[in-house]
């Protein structure tokens, strides 16, 4: 098992290395001059040249890359062109918002998708199975921004049941400790703020979770159906085991494998979806930060955020692989 984990960890290094090269090239080889971007369109050529020299943009590319890599390894992700704030500091303060949103979306997607998929598999080829298929088709076909805006319109504008945007009532004086609204409100001993945070979280989580919900439902249905047709399930039934026991011991144990894989793969989709969801719902997370960075042509913000997103995605995939090996001994010894 340790060997497996070490092998997977080593496998992630070239990917990260390649990623750093690509992101470096993004800034340095494509049109647009970072020095010009920092100084603005009206800067004199002399000032731009001075800035280029100061930023080391006139050095050979390999030197620049090594410097960039060295900074990265020391946790220096550069500073925002707009307000000169270190990107890392900003990312750390914003990540809790994105984590809160993606975890809520994942809970929504898995919490509904897995039971729904199991239900559809047990009633395969029936009307209710058809209904579930339609729901999952809609889930993958409705873009996050269309669903988000529609939910806002129905539940915030028309019905007034839930807040349309933000993470918490702006009048609430929440003491920020962890930047997780739900945790901070509990630390303050304010259940009312906690509930307010939850009510702000519902619509964005549903919007963001709709695509994973559809995919998880589909995979769970297909996986349970596959396993149900296996010989060992027939054997279990033939030897007189109860349905509940067959489901728990024989079907679900084996059906989990593809579901776990897909749960892990969805994390990348959720991070990408968060970029748009946070824009729709005015959610002050990392996704919003990167969109603002693009609007401001803030190179380092965009570059570093993509790198961090990719890092998170790689780590999650690694964890999924390990969990997969725990669940399926056949993988470990392959």
């Amino acid at each position: 098992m340790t060997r497996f984990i070490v092998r997977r960890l080593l496998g992630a290094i070239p990917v990260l290395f390649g990623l750093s090269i690509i992101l470096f090239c993004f800034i340095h080889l494509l049109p647009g001059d970072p020095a010009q971007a920092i100084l603005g369109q009206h800067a004199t050529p002399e000032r731009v040249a001075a800035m280029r020299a100061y930023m080391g943009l006139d050095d050979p590319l390999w030197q620049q890359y090594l410097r960039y890599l060295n900074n990265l390894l020391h946790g220096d992700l550069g500073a925002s062109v707009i307000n000169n704030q270190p990107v890392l500091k900003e990312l750390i303060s914003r990540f809790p918002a994105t984590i809160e949103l993606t975890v809520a979306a994942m809970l929504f997607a898995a919490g509904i998708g897995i039971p729904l998929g199991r239900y559809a598999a047990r009633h395969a080829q029936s009307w209710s199975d058809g209904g579930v298929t339609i729901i999952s088709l809609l889930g993958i076909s409705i873009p996050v921004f269309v669903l988000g805006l529609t939910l806002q319109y129905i539940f915030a504008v028309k019905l007034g049941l839930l807040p349309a945007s933000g993470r918490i009532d702006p009048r609430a004086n929440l003491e920020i400790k962890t930047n997780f609204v739900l945790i901070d409100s509990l630390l303050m001993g304010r259940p009312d703020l906690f509930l307010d945070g939850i009510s702000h979280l519902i619509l964005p989580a549903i919007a963001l979770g709709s695509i994973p919900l559809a995919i998880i439902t589909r995979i769970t249905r297909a996986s349970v159906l596959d396993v149900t047709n296996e010989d060992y399930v027939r054997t279990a039934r033939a030897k007189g085991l109860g349905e509940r026991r067959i489901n728990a011991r024989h079907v679900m144990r084996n059906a989990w494998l593809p579901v776990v894989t897909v749960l892990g793969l969805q994390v990348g989709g959720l991070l990408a979806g968060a970029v748009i969801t946070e824009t729709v719902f005015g959610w002050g997370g990392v996704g919003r930060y990167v969109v603002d960075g693009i609007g401001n042509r803030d190179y380092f913000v965009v570059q570093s955020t993509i790198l961090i997103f990719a890092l998170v995605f790689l780590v999650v995939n690694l964890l999924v692989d390990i969990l997969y090996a725990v669940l399926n001994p056949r993988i470990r010894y392959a």
Partner: protein
Amino acid sequence: MTTPAIPVAIQSDARASRGLWGDAVRRLVRNRPALLGLFFIAVFVLAAIFAPFLAPYPPNEGSLVNRLQTPSREHIMGTDLQGRDEFSRILYGAQVSLVAGVSSVVVGVLIGGTIGALAGGIGGKVDSVLMRVVDVMLSIPGILLAIGIVAWLDRGLPQIIFAVAIVNVPIFARILRGSLLSLRESDYVTASRSLGASGSRLLLRHMLPNSLTPLIVACTLALATAIIDVAGLGFLGLGPPDPRTPEWGTMLTDSTKFLRQAPWLLFFPGAAIVISAIGFNLLGDGMRESLDPRMRR
């Protein structure tokens, strides 16, 4: 000598097989959801082609007197902030989505297919290197990669097409490589290799034609995501540089400020995106079922 067992299903099927594609088409026209998908796609494509004839008003002309009108007999989908006819803009918007969606999938499949064919066909070191590149591309979440590319290459339809194409490249590469790898060990490839067929002949004549099926299904499904991604870029303000261009995602951005007064500005472009995406998803699912021999009943 025993007679080979013939499955009952085949015995009872009076019609002879017409080959992979003939059979697939026959199964596809029997698949009702796929036909519905085809219908949605037909509506979408016809709207794009005949937009100049179908649109009651020019897409970029309107007067402020007519701004934010509710749907009526004159403007069946209402008017937008500048008083432009929403229905005409949706029709013209289909052109942008169709061109950008189809071209990005074509570019994506050309690049991804080449990578996949080289990796799966040659194998060895080439395979390892190319697959690491694909891993790197896969490590950046889809739309974020597209956002990054458009942000750096600057806004424009070719940039959007390229960005959305790049998102699909690793997916296509992996699919083609996977099916090529499974074919390399198949009996008929081994047979023609032992007959002395060259590597390129094996790849082009024998392996590629037989590994295209999953790629074609993936392309159809990718069209749905491509349309959504193009609209997503537009929604984030990275759409075509001319702000007057009728692009569905960009049109949705305008709706956000007037959700209360003009919900139709959300409803109609949103429905256009969803219906075309559903069309390609239904057709893709239907094609997968009809092309996959294991699904034959």
